[in-house]
């Protein structure tokens, strides 16, 4: 009257095996769940009961105890419905125990015995394969996602009776197989293209530089000038994801249940644009049982913060660690988990509270003190991590109606790839991946400036009131521009272009 079923749960970005033990004993009829279940797991007994009854089985009017081992980690979610139901049926002798020993079961039950999709199918498949299990039975909705993992058979199922038949060997289900390369190639397309953006040649160039060197970028411009549109296209000009990166991205999306139903991989670079009312836990992750936040969902992609000064100060400050380290560690009383968070930051803001400070066609209604207060909402340390500040002017009528198409993303991406290849060669055998991450030491080594360039930098620093901090940023950006053009040394025109990407460092009025 005892049955054991294997299932799985997610902790951080990885999954661990959960043994669902079901005991049916005589006595007053009760259905108890132990092993630190949270409310959503406790509720599953009502779903399990109804599903078993509605599939034509008898639900035993006995004393049922379900244990979720290991008992010391809090379990959540509805993915234990199927293992519980199969455990009860196995304890009643309706399911043979042979396949239960080698197969992982996963799935939420609906009251009619149908199966609904679950979160975290990919990391669970990874851990099941690592533990040497031969198969995994899960809702058809998630089958493609789990089939990415090699070395384990994935069986997508629709209903509880189908699972019972499979476990008893009465009906075989063809395992889901996918051709990774083909799926990858098929999905690696973006819905938007840089050619959609009219005019704004200057901003597009800055976007290209940002993508080439992995620099964070800030757009400043009046409302409606196309800041958001530009930022959305940043992901499309970044180098394509490689398969390992795509799997990492898919894992995080899988945990949050964001992998589209019946899709196998998230093959494009993610673009996340959280609203400015987001909390710090929402941005970097958190909760009593930690969950990944927007920075982790933007892993290997772009995090776009529109209306940057409107974000809460505390929220912006928590961004510093992920920007610097590419990871986020969330420590809570129950546990501490680390999520990857290697993203490019794109931000947009208006030049002043009313938005029209830099617009030649509108009058700005803001007092200088208001503008100052507005801009000071973004702290120095954060601004320090944004290499490019770019002014996006409002479009003229002629530019809006022009028929001429800009360069498509594919063309720009080829140039970006070229520049990235140079950087890869430069930072071989180091922890650095791109120009934006250069340390002060690497900066001196890789960014030598000739006498002409030094004179230009000196003038710029004096005339524009730039800081020492800005000086280093200018060098990094100039390095990227030189890489884009294929020059070994940084020339004066590279420096000149880099200098004008420091709008916000200038003392106002100069």
């Amino acid at each position, binding site marked *: 009257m005892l049955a054991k079923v294997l299932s799985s749960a997610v902790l951080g970005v990885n999954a661990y095996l959960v043994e669902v033990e079901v005991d049916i*004993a*005589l*006595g*007053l*009829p*009760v*259905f*108890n769940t132990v092993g630190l279940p949270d409310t959503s797991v406790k509720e599953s*007994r009502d779903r399990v009961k109804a599903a078993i009854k509605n599939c034509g089985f008898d639900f035993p*009017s*006995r004393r049922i105890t379900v244990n979720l081992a290991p008992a010391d980690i809090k379990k959540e979610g509805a993915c234990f419905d199927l293992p519980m139901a199969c455990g009860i049926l196995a304890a009643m002798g309706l399911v043979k125990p042979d396949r239960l020993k080698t197969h992982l079961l996963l799935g939420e039950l609906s009251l009619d015995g149908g199966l609904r999709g679950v979160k975290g199918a990919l990391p669970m498949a990874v851990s099941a394969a690592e533990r040497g299990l031969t198969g995994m039975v899960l809702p058809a909705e998630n089958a493609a996602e789990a089939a990415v993992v090699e070395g384990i058979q994935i069986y997508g199922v629709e209903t509880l009776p189908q699972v019972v038949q499979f476990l008893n060997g009465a009906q075989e289900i063809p395992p889901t197989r996918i051709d990774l390369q083909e799926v990858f190639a098929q999905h690696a397309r973006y819905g938007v293209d840089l050619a959609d953006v009219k005019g704004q040649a200057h901003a597009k160039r800055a976007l290209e530089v940002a993508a080439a060197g992995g620099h964070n970028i800030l757009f400043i411009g009046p409302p409606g000038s196309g800041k958001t549109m530009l930022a959305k296209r940043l992901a499309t000009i970044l180098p394509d994801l490689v398969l390992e990166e795509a799997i990492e991205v898919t894992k995080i999306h899988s945990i949050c249940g964001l992998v589209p139903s019946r899709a196998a991989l998230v093959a494009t670079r993610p673009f996340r644009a959280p609203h400015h009312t987001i909390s710090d836990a929402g941005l970097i992750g958190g909760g009593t049982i930690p969950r990944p936040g927007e920075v982790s969902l933007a892993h290997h992609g772009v995090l776009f913060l529109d209306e940057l000064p409107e974000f809460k100060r505390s929220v912006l400050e928590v961004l510093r660690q992920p920007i610097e380290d590419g990871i986020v560690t969330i420590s809570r009383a129950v546990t501490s988990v680390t999520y990857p968070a290697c993203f490019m930051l794109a931000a947009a803001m208006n030049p002043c509270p009313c938005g029209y400070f830099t617009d030649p066609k509108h009058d700005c209604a803001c007092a200088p003190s208001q503008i100052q207060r507005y801009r000071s909402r973004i702290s120095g340390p954060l601004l320090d991590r944004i290499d490019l500040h770019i002014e996006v002017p409002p479009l003229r009528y002629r530019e809006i109606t022009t028929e001429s198409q800009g360069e498509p993303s594919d063309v720009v991406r080829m140039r970006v790839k070229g520049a990235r290849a140079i950087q890869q060669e430069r930072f071989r055998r180091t922890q650095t991946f791109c120009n934006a991450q250069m340390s002060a030491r690497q900066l001196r080594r890789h960014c030598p400036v000739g006498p002409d360039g030094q004179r230009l930098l000196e003038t710029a620093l004096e005339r524009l009131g730039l800081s020492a901090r800005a000086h280093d940023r200018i060098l990094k950006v100039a390095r990227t521009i030189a890489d884009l053009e294929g020059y070994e040394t940084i020339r004066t025109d590279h420096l000149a272009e880099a200098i004008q990407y420091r709008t916000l460092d200038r003392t106002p009025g100069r």
Partner: protein
Amino acid sequence: MKAGRLGLGAEGERVAKAYLQTKGFRILHENYSTPLGEIDLIAKEGGVVVFVEVKARTSGEFGPPQASVTLAKQRQIVKVARLYLQRERLAEVACRFDVVAVTFAGGQAGQPNVLLIRDAFSSEGIALF
């Protein structure tokens, strides 16, 4: 309460008992009374001990009879059942809670409508003490 209404309950229990017997239940106790409360019928069907709550009404106008087996009533029945099992030393036995709903549509003299709800509720979420 009028005598007629007390009579309704007794009449309902009589009808229920006869109905269960035709269904093959063996009646063990009627109105099993303890300090914790009362169970209308304790029966045995196959090897299963069945605790039966009987509800009778003269019309369905205020909902069916079984609707008035409230959570509080269920709790009370479960407590009494526990006491019964302990007194009889029956820890290892299968048991069940049924409800028999009796409706006397045309007054008490008319033909009663009987509904047996097997496994109507369980002892889930009801504190042990």
